């Protein structure tokens, strides 16, 4: 059994208990043993001075693409979990649009095994809603949950059939798992490569109107009401979606939603000069959308921040805008972008950000973590929110480099990440190594 | 100079004056007027812009303002007299000869300049010269004509070029 570890002198922020004070955190046997000021170090304990950092429950990302199996040149479960740890995440949920699709018990089990072998951040599989993500026949939710799936989603593709979405929500009630939907009405978005607006008009690129997302958000909310199921809406991007969510929450429906750091910080203008690193789906929208999304996160209308980490090989983005794939990597910039834009930008307090990046996503997906309550697994992050750093994609632990934030100066990054009490990322050691 | 041109051409038959843009065009007009006063014949005049025939596009970049090229009909069988203000390296005349060749086959081409400042880089000589001025590469010869510059004047500025 590993020696006890005392994290000494940090600013402990635990939104699950409304805690924000200078305190020590004692970790023993992989769990939080105690949190409080001036804790003594038990015999044989390692003491780590974390003064000047924020000690918080490890960040939780409910939406990542780890590409294994199928595209291990872009990312593997091990490199993705390592990148997550470097970003301060102790748990991530892997979307099932792998090759082959994670739509059965064996495929879910493979991801669980690979993640245990890798041993960095915890990786929770999300199973497919439909067999092969083809949008027709329901996948075996029960078997997948038995093997470790924490939710179902056809992400990467929308659930086009309203009937399928309805039955998925109804059927998922048995297992009390959320059904995560990528909201996109495909006949409206077909061929679109960026937000439908003035920039698309100028660049001559086909736009994806906000309505393509909002129609599906509205539909899913109506189906959640009809079925009593738990719907989780992925990466909302428009002010219209925010309004629909606000009304759904007011009516007490079981609807949750996430937003990405890039939709909280960038607009359609990032696509200028055909920068393919700004090509993502849903697309970057307008300043008014960004403002509405920030407000919604502050109000809790949107529940959590998720990265939608989507690695692509270096040469895939080296193409004409129409031909480049959608998506960017986000695990190693998520906290820095969110802290810089939202906390330093005045939209959220630091405890609110931790709430939205750790406590709430863990609750929504029913995961361990998101808390420093004694007895909970010691999934902990010490965040350095003082030093600025510059994003250097070449230094990512992820296998891919496709980020629109390259060269950006950010504040806020993980100094130390622990999963079950074990150090999985140590910026000091990494810097010295 | 007009007299010399007539002598050179043995009269005005078949004579065509071709001015090089820009001041050569004005000089050609003046010579034509003088010939008209003397001989009672208005000889055909043309204008030639040699910009597109220069051999230094790669080194000095494009010259944005290209003047008009306008020739009085086919030059085949004519005696073309090229008129320019200053004869220096000879490259302009070389370009003008190339360009004229694309407009027909004159029976003879002559060269008439107001100032010959020496410094030739090509084996080209003028047939009619208003004035010979000895200059060095650092000097600038500025010709002003009333039609374009408001006055007629030739200045030699010593050491004007670095």
């Amino acid at each position, binding site marked *: 059994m590993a020696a006890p570890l005392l994290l000494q002198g940090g600013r402990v922020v635990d939104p699950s208990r409304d805690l924000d004070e200078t305190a020590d955190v004692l970790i023993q046997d992989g769990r939080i043993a105690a949190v409080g000021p001036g804790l003594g170090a038990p015999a044989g304990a390692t003491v780590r001075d974390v003064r000047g950092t924020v000690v918080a429950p490890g960040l939780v990302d409910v939406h990542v693409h780890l590409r294994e199996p199928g595209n291990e040149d872009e990312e593997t479960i091990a490199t993705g979990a390592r990148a997550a740890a470097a970003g301060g995440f102790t748990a991530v949920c892997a979307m099932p649009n792998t090759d082959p699709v994670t739509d059965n018990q064996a495929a879910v089990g493979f991801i669980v095994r690979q993640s245990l072998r890798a041993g960095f951040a915890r990786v929770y599989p999300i199973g497919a809603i439909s067999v092969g993500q083809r949008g027709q026949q329901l996948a075996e939710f029960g078997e997948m949950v038995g093997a470790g799936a924490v939710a179902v989603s056809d992400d990467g593709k929308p659930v086009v059939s309203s009937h399928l979405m309805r039955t998925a929500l109804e059927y998922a009630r048995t297992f009390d798992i959320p059904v995560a939907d990528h909201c996109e009405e495909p006949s409206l978005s077909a061929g679109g490569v960026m937000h439908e607006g003035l920039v698309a*008009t100028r660049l001559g690129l086909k736009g994806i109107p906000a309505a393509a997302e909002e129609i599906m958000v509205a539909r899913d909310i109506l189906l959640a009401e009809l079925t009593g199921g738990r719907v989780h809406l992925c990466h909302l991007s428009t002010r219209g979606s925010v309004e629909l969510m606000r009304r759904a929450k007011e009516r007490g429906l079981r609807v949750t939603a996430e937003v990405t750091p890039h939709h909280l910080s960038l607009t359609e203008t990032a696509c200028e*000069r055909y920068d393919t690193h700004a090509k993502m789906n849903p697309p970057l929208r307008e300043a008014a959308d960004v403002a509405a999304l920030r407000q919604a996160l502050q109000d809790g209308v949107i529940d959590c921040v998720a990265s939608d980490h989507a690695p692509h090989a270096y040469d895939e983005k080296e193409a*004409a805008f*129409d031909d480049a794939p959608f998506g960017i990597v986000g695990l190693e910039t998520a906290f820095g972008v969110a802290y810089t834009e939202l906390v330093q930008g005045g939209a959220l307090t630091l405890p609110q950000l931790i709430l939205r990046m750790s406590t709430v996503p863990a609750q929504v997906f029913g995961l361990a973590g998101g808390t420093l309550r004694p007895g909970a697994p010691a999934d902990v992050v010490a965040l350095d929110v003082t030093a600025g750093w510059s994003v250097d994609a070449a230094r990512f632990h992820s296998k891919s480099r496709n980020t629109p934030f390259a060269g950006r100066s950010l504040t806020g990054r993980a100094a130390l990440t622990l999963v079950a009490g074990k150090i999985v990322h140590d910026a000091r050691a990494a810097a010295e190594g | 100079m007009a007299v010399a041109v007539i002598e050179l051409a043995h009269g005005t038959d078949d004579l065509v004056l071709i001015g090089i843009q820009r001041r050569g065009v004005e000089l050609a007009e003046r010579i034509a007027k003088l010939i008209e006063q003397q001989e009672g014949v208005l000889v055909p005049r043309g204008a030639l812009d040699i910009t597109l*025939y220069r051999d230094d596009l790669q080194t000095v970049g494009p010259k944005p303002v*290209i003047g008009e090229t306008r020739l009085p009909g086919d030059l085949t069988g004519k005696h073309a007299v090229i008129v320019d203000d200053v004869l220096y390296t000879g490259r302009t005349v070389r370009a003008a000869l190339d360009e004229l060749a694309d407009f027909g086959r004159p029976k003879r081409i002559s060269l008439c300049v107001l100032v010959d400042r020496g410094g030739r880089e090509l084996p080209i000589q003028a047939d009619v010269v208003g004035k010979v001025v000895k200059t060095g590469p650092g000097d600038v010869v500025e*010709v002003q004509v009333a039609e374009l510059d408001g006055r007629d004047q030739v200045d030699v500025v010593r050491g004007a*070029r670095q």
Partner: protein
Amino acid sequence: MTAALGKDLIGLERLSPDQIRLILDTAEPFKEVSERPIKKVPALRGKTIVNLFFEASTRTRISFEFAEKRLSADTVNVAATGSAVQKGETLVDTAKNLEAMRIDMVVIRHASSGAAQFLGDRIRSNVVNAGDGKHEHPTQALLDLLTIRDKLGRIEGVKVCLVGDILHSRVARSNIWGLTKLGAQVAVCGPHSLMPRGIEELGVTVLRRVEEAIEWADVLNVLRLQLERMEAGFIPSLREYYRVFGVTVERLAKAPRALTVMHPGPMNRGVEIDSRVADGPHSVILDQVTNGVAVRMAVLYLLAGGKPELADAAKGPAAGGTD
């Protein structure tokens, strides 16, 4: 003095009014070159130009090829039509290959918006955009501007209406930039299902009906309607399009003033334009074609020596001398 165009001509959006005027003024003497018995000047002798057409085009390619040959450049035509999936890959590889062959200029036509920019950012050679997706077709707009200037003697204050499929038209975008920069009043007219979002913010008026356009405009620039727009459901039928938006003799008869009709070609007679209009006295369509060669010669000529540092050097002391 010298308003250099820079390394590439990607679109008119990024050119200044002075740069656009420079190209138009430079095109004037090139018109005369095409009237000579020997239609050729040695200005680009020794330059190698590749015409890289990823999308079929007869007239634009021929126009560029004439322009290049009349400037004495050596030209190579590459017609590359790749599958949708391989397009991007091909473009990167093509760029690297061209660079390796030390060519001087590339004229590129591509179905993807931004392809010309993409190429220009990656090779040292000059790049001329001959149409990229729905983005820009700068030389077409330049020849349209030259034709308007020839016909009406000015561009400033002229009322020009672009009629047809604005949404998918690179010609429309380049024309809007060029015309507005030179002080024309610009309107667009077409079915709203073929009108891009936020087009008014580019400084144009949207006219609902073609009758309004004819009443308002000095110049109508009638855009080609692609057949696939009907198949994609943007309009119900070509027949109805002609009934509602076709530029016909009967409609033109109601014009309150002399109206000039332009078309970038190739025309769909009886779809967007009545044959009697295309061949009639309002039409300057063939003048556009003639001007196309002159404008392209001007662009190639200005870009050829157009390394900015050289253009700057030309402004220096040497420019004061004669000979």
